[in-house]
């Protein structure tokens, strides 16, 4: 297993504002968590907060250790609820989209 997984992470619906105003991010995610388990969405979210997100308002993205309610997560265009939510194990070349429903309509 390679050390990193090359994936695409996208932020839309206003979330891009929290990530340097950039919609698409090419991420090389460590393929294993610190404890050796395969990288999951939960791990990705922690990684994004620590290593990618420069905005200090983390609570606009994460609440209670998970993605804030009102933010949809699509894994290769599928609702993450169909994929095991934050326990989904990330595969290489995955496209993970975070889209906020909370911003002005």
């Amino acid at each position, binding site marked *: 297993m390679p050390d990193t997984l090359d994936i695409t992470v996208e932020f839309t619906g206003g979330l891009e504002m929290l990530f340097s105003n950039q919609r698409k991010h090419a991420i090389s995610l460590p393929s294993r968590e610190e404890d050796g388990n395969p990288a999951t969405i939960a791990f990705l979210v922690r990684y994004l907060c620590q290593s990618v997100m420069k905005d200090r308002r983390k609570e606009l993205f994460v609440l209670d250790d998970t993605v804030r*309610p009102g933010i949809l997560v699509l894994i290769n265009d*599928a*609702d993450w609820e*169909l994929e095991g939510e934050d326990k989904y194990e990330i595969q290489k070349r995955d496209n993970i989209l975070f*889209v906020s429903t909370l911003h*002005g309509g």
Partner: protein
Amino acid sequence: MAPSPCARCKVNRALILRPKNHQRLCKPCFIATFEAEIHHTITTNNLFQRGERIAIGASGGKDSTVLASVLKTLNERHDYGLELILLSIDEGIKGYRDDSLETVKRNAVQYGMELCIIGYDELYGWTMDQVVEQVGKKGNCTYCGVFRRQALDRGAAKLGVRHVVTGHNADDVAETVLMNLLRGDLPRLSRSTSIITSMPSAIAPPKASGPGTSGVIGKNTNHGITDVRRSKPLKYAYEKEIVLYAHHKNLDYFSTECIYSPEAFRGSARTLIKNLEKIRPSSILDVVRSGEDMARLVPGNEDAKRCEGACKSTRSNLPSAEEEEEGAGGCGTSGRSTGGEMAAMEAKLLHNDVASAQVLETEITLPARPRPRNGQAHDRHAHTPFTNEPPSAATSSGGQRHDRIDDDTTPTTPRPKSPTKKRSTTHTLPHPPKTQKPAQKMGQCARCGYLSSQSICKACVLLEGLNKSRPKLAIDIQLDAAEEAGRC
């Protein structure tokens, strides 16, 4: 997890989990189902008439963009025979609307619709940037919200359009229901749940207003007597599905928060709605339906009124645009609530502990009590949700949201004086058919003629204050600008 097949076509892989019924659908089936449900809402509520010219209140945001896209699709698919135009309001906030108006302009091309952009300066003589310069950033959301509530109707009247549709979705309505329920404001709860609101707006100003006192607004809107109907075709559509529809159809929309309202997220009823949805997705529609059911029990509701002559509500059940979106905050184009309201509400509930379980009876039996105007919640303790604030704090805050300014403190909105405590039960049945509308009892603003429960509407009150401190010259210029407006 093994991919599951679409529940509808049984062929494609399911990508969408529907919040309302947990159905798993593939992309084409989801899009078809979403559109079919909006069509169902439109037809069962008789929202449109053939040949109608309809202005879509367009902000460039997800809701109005989806609304425009779906209405275009349905208008063609089912031959509604509608003429659809886009109507955008420019608040005059530099840098805020620029991008969203660009989005609306692209939408106009994409959907082949006429676009009219009307500015606060045209409608009121003030841009929001000028208002902020005058009153500061604190409290400016009040102005923005009051102006916004009237802007679509005024804009439509200017264009001679008699029907405005807005992108309010189920989450918006659920939020309004909860807010009004927590406030114990049942009349407003009743009004806010209706899918159609009919209101004469922008009626030519009464002759009384001479040139000197001239309605600053009236000058702009005397394009004849107009009935502007408002409706919400997306009322039963989940915000989640609206966003997914926009995503899967690759719609071009824009998202931002009002730059003058950076705190829009915190402690809001919106957060509560989203948390409820996470626990039980169907709860949003449940709240909407419950709101509708409760609305039928409210004395003064048109159904209730017809079943018993004793209900002497002096107010019509039909909302004016001014208050229809009261549950919505000053800022945020979809009528989003702003921060702090839940905190204010919580404080009020602590103060008013009878309200908890028996809101209905409380509302009916207790006399309306005027609330103090001072110490608006917005400024005070807006961001302390679910604190244990002592009742005294609640009293001083009055539990008011920051953009509620006069409605609750005036005697022109009497609670129905019901002699019997258990009256509510007599309203539960039967429900007569909703055929005739009650007579419109609301008055008109003496300045501008806008439908209002006050003798002078909120916008005119705010404008009076603004204009007082502005040099006369500026007003003249603004009136001139108004004359040449109407370019659409």
